[in-house]
């Protein structure tokens, strides 16, 4: 029991240390801009298609469910407002982040883990460079830039998907639907989505890089690292979402 508690304290301590080192490297030269751009393409641009699919389907399903649910109380007219707010405040940041945790979190952990077990991380250090600058900072910056944009995109596509269902199932005019959406969503909702995605991107890359650096036991360890990141970062995303939502509501509502 005590050993487990100590292990957890060590784990948190190492995450804090990695965070401190990463932020120090993020704001002091040398900077690896080209690597950041490469990672934006790798993490962001290559997640575009799946983000669009997920966002669109979320919009379809939510509009369908809210539409039929509210129809019982004569509240169909509120569907655009509820769908758009739910999407931008909760569903888009959460689903996009969980998707990214699965797609790129595991990828980062596996890549850095494989580099670790094949001594490439040691080689980076032995060649007089910092693995944090070379590997962690570009991935974290790229994720913190890309994920909020993906979250906004998922919201946008979800609202469009919702419009199709509102029209097809509830005979709602496109003009009415979009007018309601635009009058409901405020700038602070967009900001809220942005902040959440940015925080989740930080969590995913931090966990993935930490696990990659601590990968042992060869290829088996690489596989375990990838799984570990998806599970842990998903839990932390879901739990921290509650607290983030509370803070953002207190700040803006």
């Amino acid at each position, binding site marked *: 029991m005590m050993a487990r508690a100590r292990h957890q304290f060590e784990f948190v301590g190492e995450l804090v240390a990695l965070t401190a080192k990463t932020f120090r490297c993020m704001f002091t030269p040398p900077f690896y801009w080209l690597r950041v751009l490469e990672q934006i393409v790798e993490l962001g641009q290559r997640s575009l298609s799946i983000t669009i699919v997920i966002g669109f389907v979320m919009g379809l399903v939510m509009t369908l469910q809210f539409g039929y649910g509210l129809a019982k109380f004569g509240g169909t007219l509120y569907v655009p407002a509820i769908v758009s707010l739910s999407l931008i405040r909760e569903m888009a940041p959460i689903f996009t982040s969980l998707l990214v945790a699965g797609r790129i979190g595991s990828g980062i952990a596996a890549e850095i883990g494989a580099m670790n077990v094949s*001594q490439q991380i040691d080689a980076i*250090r032995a060649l007089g460079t910092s693995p944090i600058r070379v590997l962690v900072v570009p991935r974290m910056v790229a994720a913190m830039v890309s994920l909020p944009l993906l979250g906004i995109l998922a919201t946008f596509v979800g609202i469009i998907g919702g419009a199709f269902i509102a029209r097809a199932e509830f005979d709602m005019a496109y003009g009415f639907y979009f007018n309601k959406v635009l009058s409901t969503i405020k700038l602070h909702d967009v900001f809220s989505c942005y902040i959440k995605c940015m925080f989740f991107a930080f969590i995913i890359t931090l966990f993935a890089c930490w696990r990659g650096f601590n990968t042992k036991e060869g290829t088996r360890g690489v596989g375990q690292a990838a799984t570990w990141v998806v599970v842990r970062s998903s839990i932390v995303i879901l739990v921290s979402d509650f607290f983030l939502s509370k803070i953002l509501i207190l700040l803006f509502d």
Partner: protein
Amino acid sequence: MENILEIKNLKKSFGDKVIHRDVSFGIKKGEIVGLLGNSGTGKSVMLRCLVGLETMDDGEVWFQKKRIDLLSEEAMFKIRTKISYAFQSGALFDSMSVYDNIAYPLREHVNLSISEEEKRVQDILDLVHLKDAGKLFPSDLSGGMQKRAGLARAMVLSPDVILYDEPTAGLDPVNVENVLEIMRSFRERGAAGIFVTHDIPAAQKVCDRLMVIDSGRIAFQGTVEEFDNSKDSVVQNFHVSL
């Protein structure tokens, strides 16, 4: 001649397992010292301690009359351009071509034009007999070629000391000769070296001095002739065990 690199009173353990009890030795400019010992005696750990990739429990490391074991990781980056490490596996970056692997230290530490960089990389590729391998990726290379590419990367900044971690392990006799020839040519260019190996004939061919590590201590230290004629029980046992 004074030592260029020196380790004093190294102590290192992993948990309850004591690796080094009290190890001290030094190397002089331009010489290659062979560090012999059976598997698990901590030869590679010692190299890692020398260059700060592993922390010591106790002891000191001195390089060019400056103590370096107390330096921060960032400060060690500059030292590691002068003491380079050739990994046993080559440890090439598998997402980069051989050319980019070798150019990596140059791009990080030296401000060169593209043509100067190409000249430096091609020069070192010629030296390790990988003239036409620049565009290949590490996965396209044989084990011997990977080791030679790793040696090239270790040498490209013209360091003062190269730490060779079993560069001949697992190679056929022809490739062993190639690697030894490369080590000799590096020495001709002024690089001292520590050659970790349990390949006695290879060490005898290239080293100026030999050391045998056993039970966490340097059990023997002397010239190749002294090693051959030694009646020391550790040296004798080491010969027999191989």
